């Protein structure tokens, strides 16, 4: 379980997160919605300890992330797969080497035969051709890079998957493919997922529960149906453009 209590973060004078309370229960998929620049990615990075809060607590599996020792934090991170917005693949490494780094168990990482099998399996799970493993990130399209990023995140059999804007910058077809992939991985791997996105359509398709972040605060949390029924003006304003979009209904 992931729990955030009273999370406050400011960069200089700009308050990005203002007393945010947020929970993700085991096995569910939560989409964190909000316009660009409202602190969604910052919140996600708090969960894995890449950013430390000015105030507040981040608890994962009952452990306060910000008080963990180096080794404990490393062990916690090995149970969390993080999918970065633009893949964050290592340019100087092939796809094989990139995905291999996601195998966080050192004994398995050193076992080349296990790595070959696991990497092939991950590449298959994200619907990429088998020969992708020999390529460098620069030789891949944006959608393929995102899928390799997902393959790297799942390579270590994580308990949690954190997606940072997995469909941003993609055309609708590739965005649908990624949404489908997220949904399928959640079903097949049984992971607990948090997906940061401003793509309302994708969030409604994938998530069990939604949360809307605006001006540093969680405006509303609830099921997709509760969001649709909400009279909250900020929720209505955020959803409206997609309600008007015919593809939303589809």
């Amino acid at each position, binding site marked *: 379980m992931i729990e955030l209590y009273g999370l406050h973060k400011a960069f200089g004078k700009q308050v990005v997160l203002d007393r945010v309370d947020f929970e993700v229960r085991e096995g569910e998929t939560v989409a964190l919605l909000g316009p660009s620049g409202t602190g969604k990615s910052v919140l996600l*990075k708090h969960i*894995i300890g*890449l950013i430390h809060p000015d105030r507040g607590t981040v608890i994962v599996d009952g452990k306060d992330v910000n008080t963990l020792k180096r080794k404990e*934090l*490393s*062990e916690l*991170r*090995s149970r*969390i797969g*993080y999918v*970065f*917005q*633009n893949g*964050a*693949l*290592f*340019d100087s490494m092939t796809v094989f080497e990139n995905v291999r*780094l*996601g195998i*966080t168990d050192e004994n398995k990482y050193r076992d080349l035969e296990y790595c070959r099998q696991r990497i092939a399996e991950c590449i298959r799970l994200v619907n990429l051709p088998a020969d992708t493993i020999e390529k460098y990130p620069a030789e891949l399209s944006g959608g393929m890079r995102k899928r390799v990023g997902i393959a*790297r995140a799942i390579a*270590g059999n994580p308990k949690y998957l954190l997606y940072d804007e997995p469909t941003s910058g993609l055309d609708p077809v590739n965005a649908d493919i990624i949404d489908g992939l997220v949904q399928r991985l959640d079903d097949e791997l049984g992971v607990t997922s948090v997906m940061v996105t401003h793509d309302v359509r994708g969030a409604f398709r994938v998530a069990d529960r939604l949360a809307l972040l605006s001006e540093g605060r969680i405006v509303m949390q609830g099921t997709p149906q509760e969001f649709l029924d909400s009279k909250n003006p900020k929720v209505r304003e955020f959803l409206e453009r997609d309600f008007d979009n015919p593809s939303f209904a589809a």
Partner: protein
Amino acid sequence: MNLFAWIGRWFLEGASHVGRLTYFVLEAIRGLGEVRIWWPRMMVEAWNIGAGSLFIVLLISAFAGAVTALQTGYQFTGSIPYYVVGTLVVSSIILELGPVLTALILAGRIGARYAAELGTMRVTEQIDALESLGRSPASHLVIPRVLAGLLMIPALTVLANLSGILSGWVSVKAVLPVTDSDFIYGAQYYWRPWDAWYSVIKAFFFAGSITIISCYMGFNTQQGAEGVGRSTTTAVVTSSVLILVLDTVLTRLLLNQ
């Protein structure tokens, strides 16, 4: 802007850099235990520094040696014995020009590369990705670069010294009637083995300043492509200034006899 506010801000920013740099170095030291991670990467980096910089280092030191010899010839009055030319060329190259020129060239070549590489990795979240995978950026990225520099820059300095001396030796014969035995005699007359050590020790310190400063700047890059450019420039300028400061300090400390 208020002068006191400007000084205060400058001071605070400097103190913040010192604190972060200290933490950065301590993190790197802590990562030294992961030999299996940094050793192969260090070998690749050492090859890149050595093979990639050899030509330019030899070329520039050869020109420095030639110019030193030609200027010595220009200033010669005839009342000084010719063998002194050997002393002047060898001492100038080994004590000063070899290590300092090599370090300044490599601050531009290696320092800029390290800062730009790590800066790009920072702004494209590759360093965050490494951390998110529970891996240490220090042992994957910093230690291999710093150790490769500490290994190769003194080695390149020794080769630069040899190149400068040989070039000076050849060049001086074009402007003065100096024989080979005159040159060798002069080179040996004031020679102290400590001078060679001094040259290598200076190169070692310069290597530390180039690699640590450029890695630190790259690691702390912010704000996209513009930030990468800023980090790269700052890394080269800071390490060049530090080389000159260290040159003065080490000369005072090591040649104070």
